[in-house]
């Protein structure tokens, strides 16, 4: 799964000279939390987040009058508060690599560049949706969590047993176990009963940690 498959194309951008107040309004109207900032030639020169804008605005507790405040805010432009060092990815960056960059740098979105051009943006929200997709959060089925030995062929044994019962795997996720000798697998299946699965897992000597209908 690569960035290109889940990014937003044609992201909302903003010219460098835009007043902070207008940028905040654009964000609210378009429902985004960050905007790539473009210069007059359409080149990306920075990125600005809603938080950058909120921190730039003087606190409501300031002693400035409402007129002074308004004046200051409309004069302050996004290029004065944006981040100039923009971390970007390419359309062929793996999705988990984009997610790793976001967590490691504590940022919520990455512009996607191809041949020096801005072609999209991938955000925390996009990653979140993929996460729901991976674990079948919106599908109904029987959801099992199992402890499985960290050994070659275990995943094959598990999926084969489900296939032999006529079950359809809707989602499957592998997690780190409590120690390096075990892994935790969460699997969502349909067309098979809990009793059948319990018997099959017992035959394989796998421990069911949790079972629920969703």
């Amino acid at each position: 799964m690569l960035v290109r498959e889940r990014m937003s194309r044609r992201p909302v951008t903003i010219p460098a000279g835009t007043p902070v107040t207008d940028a905040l309004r654009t964000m609210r109207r378009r429902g985004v939390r960050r905007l790539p900032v473009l210069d007059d030639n359409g080149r990306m020169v920075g990125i600005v987040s809603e938080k950058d804008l909120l921190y730039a605005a003087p606190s409501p507790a300031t002693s400035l009058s409402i007129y002074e405040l308004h004046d200051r805010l409309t004069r302050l432009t996004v290029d004065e508060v944006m981040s100039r060092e923009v971390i970007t990815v390419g359309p062929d960056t793996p999705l988990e690599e984009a997610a790793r960059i976001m967590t490691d740098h504590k940022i919520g979105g990455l512009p996607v560049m191809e041949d020096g051009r801005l072609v999209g943006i991938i955000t925390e929200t996009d990653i979140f949706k993929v996460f729901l997709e991976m674990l079948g959060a919106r599908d109904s089925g029987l959801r099992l969590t199992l402890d499985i030995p960290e050994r070659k062929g275990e995943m094959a044994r598990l999926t084969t047993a489900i296939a032999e019962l006529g079950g359809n795997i809707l989602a499957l996720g592998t997690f780190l176990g409590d120690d390096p000798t075990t892994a935790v697998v969460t699997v969502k299946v349909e067309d098979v009963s809990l009793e059948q699965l319990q018997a099959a897992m017992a035959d394989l000597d796998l421990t069911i940690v949790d079972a629920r209908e969703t």
Partner: protein
Amino acid sequence: MLVVERMTTHPVTVSDEATVAQALAIIEEHKLRHLPVVDKEGALIGIISEKDLLRAKEDDPVAGVMTREVITVTEYTAIEEAARIMADHQISSLPVMRDGRLVGIITETDLFNIFLELLAAREPGLRLTMLVPEEKGMLANLTNEIAAMGGNILALSTFRGEDPTNRMVTVKVSDVDGDKLVAIMEALGMEIVDVRED
């Protein structure tokens, strides 16, 4: 995977009598984006985000600007259910309750880390993405072939495909030869989308 396995226990909280400035100082010190608000008895009565605080006056009491309708989960909520609640309500953290008491918090950041774990993002291996026909038993075929080659599956995830007849699978494997793996998958009827070592 349940909330209890990946939540933060003993979350940092703020008293409802604290000021906005005090709450912001706590948020900054602990690098948080949200604070559960508790009363004198330690009962959860609200939640406040960094953004709510930035929009408020510094000497306002937290109680005046917090969100009172707090959406919570329990330790036994499925992790993807917590993620679904966050996505549907556009919120990025959920207090975790047990018998009416606050016992933890689960945030977008925790789910992000689980996402990396699911895709084995921090482990080296051969990473293969392919379109798999939407038929029963295909995942079993795939995993059996990898096992037969002596490969070890580090991570396996399924995604929506290009249309309802297929789905996309990303698998990370160690101890296999990439070219051989690709050839075998193609023979099984998989369409290879991307291959890389990382």
